[in-house]
């Protein structure tokens, strides 16, 4: 029996076949998937904010921030036996759900999350294979570690696979 492993808001989790992993209702948040195609293991994080350094309190929720999430996913995959050189990434999300005339920094959070995730992937030398980011629609995403396919569902634009 295959199961769907859920990743909540600011959450982080691992998956291996036959299970798949999914997170629902990504708005300005970014779903980050790191995977090892050969070993068929993958992890997903639901990132809310770009940088943990901006934060006063020391929250322990590693999936919440782009920097800590990429770091934690990488460590978790290595621990599970993934080889550092074959880890790849796919990302989706980072939409701007509301359009405002006053463009405060908080309103631009979607694009900032995407930028930060890309930056930290780069720092680890993890290639970004495909992405579906921006726009103004919420997304539900599901990753299958068996074929490394990421299925993206939106309310108005249907389903696509990257």
């Amino acid at each position, binding site marked *: 029996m295959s199961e769907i492993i859920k990743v*909540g*808001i*600011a*959450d982080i989790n691992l998956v291996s076949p036959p299970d798949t992993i999914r997170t*629902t*209702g*990504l*708005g*300005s*948040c970014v779903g980050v998937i790191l995977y090892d195609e050969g070993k068929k293991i993958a992890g997903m994080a639901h990132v*809310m*904010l770009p940088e943990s350094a*901006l*934060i*006063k*309190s020391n*929250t322990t*929720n590693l999936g*919440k921030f782009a920097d800590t999430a990429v770091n934690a996913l990488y460590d978790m995959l290595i621990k599970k036996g993934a080889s550092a050189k074959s880890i790849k990434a796919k990302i989706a999300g980072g*939409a701007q*759900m*509301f*359009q*405002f*005339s*006053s463009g405060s920094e*908080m309103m631009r*959070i979607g694009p900032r999350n995407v930028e930060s995730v890309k930056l930290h992937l780069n720092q680890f030398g993890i290639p970004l294979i495909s992405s579906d980011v921006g726009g*103004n*629609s*919420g*997304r*539900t995403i599901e990753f299958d570690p068996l074929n490394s396919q990421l299925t993206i569902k939106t*309310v*108005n*634009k249907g389903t696509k696979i990257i």
Partner: protein
Amino acid sequence: MDFTKINHIHLDILREIGNIGAGHAATALSTMLNKAVDMKVPSVNVISFDEITEMVGGSENIVASVFLRIVGDAPGCMFFMLPIEQAEKLLGDLLGGEAVQLTEGVHSEMTISALQEVGNILSGSYLTSFSDFTGLNLQPSVPATSIDMAGAILSFGLLEISAVSDFAIVIDTAFTDIKKLDEVKGHFFLLPDPESFAKIFNALGVPMDE
């Protein structure tokens, strides 16, 4: 954000804000629709992010929502959220019995504008009474609308609080039809920014350190 300093009196205060605010908004809605609208006793909860989306039927549930930022003495976020079929009914009533469809992604400008205006009037009356009750200076931003997954919309209101906590205080008031009390028509969510709580409690003479 230290939730341990918040006691039951503080929660009562927040509940009362929800009560007065949503009460005024319900009256405004009732006037607009020319029929009775009832509301449930507001709930004030300290809950995790995932639990918030459960309150509107799950993260993937499609809702029509109006969002606005509160600026001034006690900043925060406010959402007026309706299940899609309730929004269609409400806007249909408002636009003189016209059949309104929101799900297919083809929203007429008129419909969206009507939704925005409803949100504007309702949140305006909520906020005015909130401001009167506390004596705090509060203004709404221009409202923004979105018809999408509840999780995608609500998480936007959690950004400020998520920077300091894994939990949020949500003041939720549900609307119902006066004849069908079980049928929830919509929700009002008030999500004060973390630093606003102390200001609200101070304004009402119940500081958080005591």
